[in-house]
């Protein structure tokens, strides 16, 4: 069995990302050490994902949406990671923002097969339609679920207070 290889970390990844994705990305940032975000328009998602795979980020850890209700936008992001020795500590967030009323993004499961189940979940929980996804049906919720997708911010759930006044109840 191999010993742990030394923790080599790829240096200068931000420059690499800018070189590779600069022409289609709206914004490339280093959010935290080893955590980069790439913002693209919905139309160039597939191309951006393809280039990320070329760089070695061949699967996604997560697909998710954030419902920015005040801005009336839905952020859909794919967190790509890699098992390559020099890239394994790096996470890249590829994201886009689409209107909240009709969130439509192309599916990336042809590029990242690992996105299949998380995309299905994001469709279910946030109502983001992944165009081209072959299997958008309920995953976690009952198959007859109807209504607002539960993770949207306008789906409210009750919260209880922490004070119970028994004196008042008795008077009533």
């Amino acid at each position, binding site marked *: 069995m191999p010993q*742990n290889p030394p923790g080599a970390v790829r240096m200068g990844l931000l420059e690499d990302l800018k070189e590779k994705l600069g022409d289609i990305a709206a914004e490339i940032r280093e*959010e935290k050490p080893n955590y980069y975000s790439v913002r693209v328009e919905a139309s160039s998602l597939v191309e951006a994902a393809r280039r990320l795979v070329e760089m070695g980020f*061949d*699967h996604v850890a*997560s697909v998710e949406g954030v419902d920015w209700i005040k801005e009336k936008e839905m952020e859909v992001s794919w967190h790509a990671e890699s*098992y390559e020795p020099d890239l394994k500590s790096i996470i890249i967030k590829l994201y886009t923002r689409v209107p909240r009323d009709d969130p439509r993004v192309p599916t990336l499961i042809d590029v990242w097969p690992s996105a299949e189940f998380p995309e299905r979940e994001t469709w279910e929980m946030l109502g983001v339609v992944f165009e081209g996804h072959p299997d958008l*049906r309920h995953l976690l919720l009952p198959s007859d679920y109807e209504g607002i997708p539960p993770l949207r911010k306008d789906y409210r759930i009750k919260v209880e207070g922490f004070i119970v006044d028994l004196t008042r109840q008795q008077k009533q």
Partner: protein
Amino acid sequence: MTSQGSRSSETDMGYGPGTIKEPGFRYRPMGRDAEGMELYEIFIGPQHPASGHMRIVVRLDGDIIVNADPDIGYVHRTMEKLSETREYLKSIPLFERATIIDSANITWPYVRAVEQMLGVEAPLRAKYLRTLLAEINRISSHLYGFGLTGIFINHSTMYMWSFGDREIWVQLAEELTGARLTHTYIIPGGVRRDLPQGFKEKALKAIRYMERRLEDYMKIFVYNPVTVARFREVGVLTKNDASRLGIVGPNLRASGVHYDARIAEKYGAYPELDFEIPVMEEGDSLARLLVRIEEIKQSMRIIKQVLDKMPQGPFFADKYMRLIPPALRKHVAETGRIKLPGAFIRLKPPAGEAVARGEMGHGEVFYHIVSTGDTKPYRVRIITPAFRNVVLFRHLTRGARFMDLPVIYGSIDYFPPEGDR
């Protein structure tokens, strides 16, 4: 073959007693394939000894699985939504419930992400204590998986043995944290309890016992020719597929990919410890079992080192310790149990986002937290290892024999509450 969408609505059952119309609804012909063979659809679970809390919809051509569709969500408790209505501290017990058999490992990355946002770092002793509990949890999680694998293929001895031996690690964790499974031990800033007196001797005894028992496990279960016949070359996952499908944990390492979030993220005390990441090349069900056995050994090695190297010092960050009144600070020093400052209810990380990954017994867990500067997170995304491995049900079972399904299920160590969250 009917489309899958219409199928699920057809067979969905109501609540009342009159709803079971067809007595044989679990086993019915689906039509014929191209060569005229009849295809059958079998619903396994959620009430089935080898299904756990999920349903697998299997399509069979004779004895060969054409397609297995995991129907999960039976344990979906809506953690992501609930965490948006709760303060940061309150989400720790919430996420813990996804995998109560491995609760330290699933909450640790969350706490690290919150700490990252708050700009707090746990003291060194706390990091060692976290590592200690995480490894104890990893062992008990693997033993749990072993027990279930055993019972899936009707090897009751393995179930009884590994669940019996798991009690030792559960007991160790209980002495450290005060709870059998749901420890809620790791909190932002450190841990909740100091190492109790005489813990090291107990742990060393448990390790010596376990080392001996693992040899017996090999003889009675892993290298039992019956097991080898059922596990060897069953459910083979190639290296390329494992990487492309984003498989995690021992399932990934059994396919020859050297990846472990403990190494990738360099958290806790792991960078200072000497241990190996077991990797096997075969990628079959037996290799997945063997990797787990090897990981138990490595975890015991880590526990020994952690107990030897355990640094002195505080187990809770100074930043929060200062918020506690002096009388209580004395109480903490005497009892070794933390008193939380009142401000802990309303931890307020600045606006921004953080990601963190951690290695659980089942694989890598991923957290993404979005904060808007409120006391409650705006969005928490959890991707648990089981959710990432669920695709294996479809991928590995295609073309396998129906009888191999429990073996594949057992060997990928899928834990439904964790997958559904």
